């Protein structure tokens, strides 16, 4: 739970989501597409950098991204299982 909140805070900062607070981001809402947070392809790249920089995670297979970045919760699960720092 703490990791989810931490990720939300880092995402808001990295993606310049200035109008948002962590409370505005639903743990399970899709990050991409009209129904979710509405992030774009550049945002995905920025999230990949965020995971590498903060948690030592390198995503080698781009196809994994769709599952990892489905929601903040799936991101948190992936980070918890794969972090090296």
């Amino acid at each position, binding site marked *: 739970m703490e990791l989810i909140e931490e990720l939300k805070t880092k995402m808001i900062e990295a993606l310049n989501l200035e109008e948002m607070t962590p409370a505005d981001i639903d743990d399970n809402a899709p990050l991409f597409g009209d129904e979710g947070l509405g992030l774009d392809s550049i945002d995905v790249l920025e999230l990949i*950098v965020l995971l590498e*920089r903060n948690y030592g995670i390198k995503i080698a297979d781009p196809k994994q991204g769709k599952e990892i970045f489905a929601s903040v919760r799936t991101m948190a699960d992936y980070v918890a299982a794969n972090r090296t720092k």
Partner: protein
Amino acid sequence: MEPKVIHRVKLTPRSLEVDGKRVAEAVAGESFLTHVYRQRQMDYPKFFKMDVLCKLGFIASEILLETEGAERFVPRADRAVILFNRNSSLNADRTFQRTIADPEEFYPSPSVFVYTLPNIVTGEIAIRNKYHGESNFILLPEKSEEAMNQAVERAFMDGETTSVLTGWLEAVSETEYEAEMKLIMMM
């Protein structure tokens, strides 16, 4: 028929002028560009992701086009966007450089990198307003009305352009910038 300036916007860190009248002044504690964005209730969340050059061009063009009062967002190919400056996308270039300067902290930022070209702002304005005419960002060794006028005159020669959103758009840092944008129509 000859080109005539219809409206002008001047935007600096200190003030906003529309057609020579001061309509807003800087307030302490907030970026003036963000202040104008919020004050004018511009609903365009992508604004917050832009670099300062793009923010400057976005705000100046929005105010210029609001002042024009014509119907917005109708696809058209008869309006060109031609902007000028001396320092290209220097602020974004520097910001990006900081993300790769330290070998121990080498994390190139994709969202900064996309703004390391000055013509991103002309494209942003064209996409936002559905302009399909000429889109061009020209670097000049110094601010020259003569050189800028020549580029605008050339744009009108293509047989399709009837108006040009143009002007000087310089942003060397978050606090040092200047937009002198105008809308020129063939009348």
